[in-house]
Every structure is written in C-alpha cells, then in structure tokens.
C-alpha cells in the first residue's frame, strides 16, 4: 500500500478520499486554490499545498502544478476524485510519466470512453446494446438535419466530450434544431474546450440505471449492482438510489453482464460506472462509461458495505480484487439526495452566498458527506453542491421515510437549497411506487406544491414573522446583497416568482 497519496480535488470528494486514506494508514496530501485555504479538505488532510488562484483553470485543472506538488511532497499516487482532471487522459498519462501511480483506469481507457462516439463503436463491437445515433461528431447544421431525419425526432444533441448534462439539448422538431445545436456547442466549448457534439435517438421516458464495476490489474472484473439515477433536473442527477426499484435478479444479471463486458472491451482497470438507459420494455442501452468514482457512489457503499475508495487504493497498489461476483450481496436500500445550493422554487437557480448556519440531521441510517462547513461561502468558482445526504433502510419504504425525516431536520441558512425538492420527491406517489423515469421533474414536479399548503403552518410562520418584526430583531442588513438569489423587480417579487414557477412546468 502507498505511504502517501495526493488528492487532486476539493470539496466533499476530497474529504471522502482523505478519510479513506486515514482509515488505511495512508498519509493524504491536499491541494488548494487561494479561496480554499481553510476549506474542509485542507483542514482534514495531513498536508496541504497551494496551487494558485480561484478559477479551476488556474489551479485544480493545471496538471503541472499538481504533479509538481506530488513530487515535492513525496506522494506516490494521485487520486483525482470526480470532475476536474479525473477523466483527462493526458493528465493520467502525465501522472504515470512522472513515475506516480494513477488511481484510476489506464489512460487509453479514459480516452476511449471520453469520446462518446468512439465508446459507442467499441460497445457495438463487443455486443453491448447502444442507442441509435450518429457514428461521429456533427460537422454542421445540414449534417445534423440529415441525421435527425434519418433517426427520427425527437433527437438528443450531446457533447462528445460531455458529462453532467452540460452541452445537452433535446430537439423535438426541425425548427428547434439550429438554436439547440448552437447553444449546445457553446456550452460544450465552454465546459469541455471542445465544440464537438453528436446526435442520438431521444428515448422517451427512459430510466437512467448505472452499474458500478471494479476491475483489478489481473484481469478480474466484477460489478457491485446498480444505481437508479432517473431523478434529474437539467439532465443532472439529484436523487439516486440502490437498488433500482425496477430491478429484478434476472435483469440485474443481464445488465451486470453488459457492464462487465463494457469494461472488458476497453481494457478497464479500477472503479468505473457503466450508464444505461432502460426503456419501457426493460431493454437496456449503453449510454456512456464514467471512468472515475461517481458522485453517487455512497448508495452502493451503503448496500454492499464496501468502501469503494478503499477498493480503489487497493487495486491501484496492485492487489487483486478481494471479492468475486458471488461475494457481492445487496443489503437493504439506500437513497442519496444531493443538497445543492440552488433554489428549488426558482427553477433550480444556483444560489451563491455564505452558509450562515449548518446543522445536518443524524441518527440511525443517516449518512452525511459534507464538503463545506458553516461559515464557508458557496462561490461561483466551483460546483454548488453542499453535501450528499444518504438514508439507508431495511427496505425502500423505510429509506424513503427516513430520508424525508432527515430532510425536515436539515437546518441550513444563508442559501436556498434543493431540500424542499427532496421532500417533494419523498412524498410523491410516483416516486414512492417506484414508477418514474427521467421525465420525473418535467412530469411530476410542480413548484406550486413546494409551497406548503398547510394553513396551520402558514399561520405559525405569520405569527413568528410578526413577532420578529415587532421586536425589531433582524439579521444583518447586508444579507440582502450577500445571500439573495432571487431575480427581483422592485415591488414585483411575487409576480416574478409566479412566472418562475410556470416557466418551470414547460
């Protein structure tokens, strides 16, 4: 095992890796940008090195700086977390070139899977089912129009290098194609430094189900079951669970086999996730492979009992997988809710500001992976995720009720969050029945329902507000500029709000 590992990341995932290191007796090295000097990952690591200004492009994305810190600190390996450089094959190669161990898959596998078009063709060769679409990137509008006609509307424009829903647009009819194509390209260019996009058949109401795979350096590959990730807003996951309420042992075996084949086809090693779309007839299609740890890995940990970061370190250090497929047993049910600094009531508009108070819930079955602390600011520089709240239960029903309880106890002020949305999901009939797909937010979510309709509670809010007003007690008057997220027009707030809600419904 390594003596010292550098974590090329920040926030909750850096903290997650640091903790696994500490539990394994491995020293951890953090890197931090100027605004992150007292961020949680710096406080918890054994060592910490500055790597430049706040913008990621000048710090967390600068391969040379990170490799330099690794060499200076005496780290023997680099864990990239997710995001930033985690799926950058050049970086992975540079790490290996500097005689450091890369805690992740071989650079070639990253490169192959990083190109969605290349990945599709390899999967087809390996016999893994894929969604019909263009074999390569699209050159221009004409070509796009031709392909769209061929595949048939609706089609999905996707960034070839994309991920996290960025650079993705659904096109329902030819007239929308141009604007969507331009906008997807701009977003792709900005997020991935590549304007290349391609077209895919847009599956109506698919479920997004992914399999966690692990491959060691000795040819052994297993999967750790699936995660259901169909609850998304803006094509980004927000609620995930394991197992999927759709799953049967037979389907799990079938999809698990596809996932392992996908990993084998690209010479995979270490942790990876094979994402599938599952249509209404339970056919599954390879969507993409994420060649890193996922944000939502905790739900798999909760039902398998395995520490995935620990496994990553073991495998990267050359050990064989300590489990065979038969050893993997799923126990109970886990749900993850991503607590984002976004206003659930305002179309998930990101909210910046200072976390004035933060008191997560605790108790049986509750796991919290926080990336920030009270007093920290949610800045524009990085992802607005505050924490991941996970509820485990003996069965799905208990996990749902536990998550709802925990969300109601979650106390955070200073920014608006996705917590009200989370409560909505836990109380929603379609979700509770397990009868939902990626259209959940469009179909089921009505922002009006977030406005608690209990007269009794509104009365209590009125009472407290009147009292507070009467006492003249008031939070610091500069909160307005510090923490509001609401686009306001003087004296017309409620008008705007109404519109925000309606807009969300389309």
């Amino acid at each position, binding site marked *: 095992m390594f003596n010292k590992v550098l974590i090329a990341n920040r926030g909750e995932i850096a903290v997650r890796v640091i903790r696994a290191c500490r539990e394994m007796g491995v020293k951890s090295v953090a890197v931090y940008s100027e605004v992150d000097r007292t961020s949680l990952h710096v406080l918890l690591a054994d060592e910490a090195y500055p790597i430049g200004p706040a913008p990621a492009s000048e710090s967390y994305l600068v391969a040379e700086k990170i490799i330099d810190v690794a060499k200076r600190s005496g780290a023997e390996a680099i864990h990239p977390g997710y995001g930033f450089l985690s799926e950058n094959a050049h970086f992975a190669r540079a790490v290996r070139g500097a005689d450091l161990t890369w805690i992740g898959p071989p650079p070639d596998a990253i490169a192959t899977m990083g190109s969605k078009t290349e990945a599709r063709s390899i999967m087809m060769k390996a016999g893994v089912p894929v969604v019909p679409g263009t074999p390569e990137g699209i050159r221009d509008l004409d070509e796009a129009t031709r392909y769209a006609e061929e595949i048939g509307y609706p089609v999905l424009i996707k960034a070839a290098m994309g991920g996290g829903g*960025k650079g993705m647009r659904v096109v329902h009819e030819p007239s929308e194609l141009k604007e969507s194509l331009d*906008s997807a390209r701009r*977003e792709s260019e900005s*997020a991935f430094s590549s304007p290349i996009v391609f077209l895919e058949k847009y599956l109506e109401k698919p479920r997004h189900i992914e399999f966690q795979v692990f491959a060691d350096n000795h040819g052994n590959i297993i999967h750790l079951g699936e995660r259901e990730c169909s609850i998304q807003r*803006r094509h980004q996951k927000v609620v995930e669970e394991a197992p999927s309420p759709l799953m049967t042992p037979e389907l799990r075996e079938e999809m698990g086999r596809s996932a392992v084949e996908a990993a084998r086809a690209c010479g995979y090693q270490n942790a990876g996730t094979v994402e599938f779309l599952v249509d209404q007839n339970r056919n599954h299609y390879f969507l993409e492979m994420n060649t890193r740890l996922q944000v939502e890995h905790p739900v798999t940990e909760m039902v398998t009992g395995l520490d995935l970061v620990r496994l990553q370190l073991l495998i990267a250090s050359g050990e064989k997988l300590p489990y065979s497929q038969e050893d993997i047993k799923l126990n109970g049910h886990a749900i993850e809710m991503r607590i984002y600094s976004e206003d659930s009531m*305002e179309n998930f*508009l*990101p*909210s*910046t500001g200072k976390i*004035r*108070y933060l008191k997560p819930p605790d108790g049986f079955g509750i796991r919290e992976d926080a990336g920030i602390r009270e007093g920290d600011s949610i800045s*524009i520089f990085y992802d607005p995720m505050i924490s991941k709240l996970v509820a485990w239960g003996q069965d799905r029903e208990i996990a749902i009720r536990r998550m709802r309880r925990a*969300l*109601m*106890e*979650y*106390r955070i*002020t*200073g920014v*608006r969050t996705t*917590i*009200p949305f989370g*409560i909505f999901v836990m109380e929603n009939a379609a979700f509770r029945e397990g009868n939902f797909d990626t259209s959940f937010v469009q179909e089921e979510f009505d922002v009006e329902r977030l*406005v608690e309709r209990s*007269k009794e*509670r*509104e*009365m*209590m*809010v*009125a*009472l*407290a*507000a*009147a*009292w*507070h*007003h*009467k006492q003249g*007690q*008031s*939070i610091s008057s500069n*909160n*307005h*500029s510090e923490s*509001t*997220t*609401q*686009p*306001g*027009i003087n*004296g*017309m*707030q*409620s*008008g705007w*709000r109404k*519109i925000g809600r309606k*807009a969300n419904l389309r």
Partner: protein
Amino acid sequence: MQNKHKYTVNVNETEYVIQFLDSPGEVLVNGERVRFDLQLETPPDHYSLLADNKSYLLAIDGNDSPGNYRIHMMGYDYEAEVVSAREAYLRDFVRAAGVGKSEGVVKAPMPGKIVKLHVNEGDDVAKNKGIMVMEAMKMENEIRSPIAGKVSRFHVQSGDTVEKGQILFEISSK
C-alpha cells in the same frame, strides 16, 4: 412589552392577521386565540415556537426589504411580508391616491456572463418572454420578463460579465 399590536402578514400569498394581546403569551391568529411561547434559539434569528403546545422550529433566513422576511421552517421555505396596522393604513391611503403604472429593474440573480439578447430596447414583450441568456456556473440560464410590458432600457450587452445584483434591464408595464 408593547401589546395590542396588530399585523397583517402575507405568507406565500395568503393573508393572516396577527394580534398580540395584553396577556403575555397570547395572540389572536385570524381572530382565534392561541397560547404561544416563542424562544430565540442559539444561532441568532432561529426560533422555537410552541403554539398550543405544538412545536415548530424556524429560522429567519434573510430580509429582502423592510418587513419582507424569508423564513425556513422544517424543510420548507416561506416568504412573509409583515405590515403593521399603521403601515397598512398608510399604504391604503397611498393606493387610494392612485399610482398606476409600475416599472422596475431586473437584476442579475448571480454573477455570470451575458451570452445573448433575445429582444431589442423598446420591444414590447409578453410575460415570461425570454429576454436574454446568461451563462453562470457553466450553465446557460434564460432571464425572462416578470411582467407584460416594454423593455425600456438594457444596461448590459452580449459578452458582458455581470456581478450579482447588477441591473440587467428596465421594464415598464403598459
């Protein structure tokens, strides 16, 4: 303690009348008597409210303008506007005097970059019409018109980087 204070509170667009009584710990909520005990909690602006022995935990989480509070209670967010009886009287008086046309400014909800303007200065726009596209946190966000009206002035143009709270455009109702 100053009693007999009467307030009109608008919570999520419903009006409630709150009148604190002379006897401490008693209040009329929409005319109904409620025994209450409101205690400031350890973090400032957090309250524990017991009302007829029901327990509520809430936090005043922002103060957009005088009398306008954002409130968090057990997982839910509320907007509450408090107007004292005296203020309400004044407001009615002003309203009676007749102030017709409303206008205002739309500000940037967060820092970002203006990617595109959809309309021109002077254009009439419907409610909810997309006015511009702003990129923030690597996502494109549509900025829409809060009312039906005329875009009287743009304060930004495509390519501008804007700060949070910076004025984007002015709009007036017809």
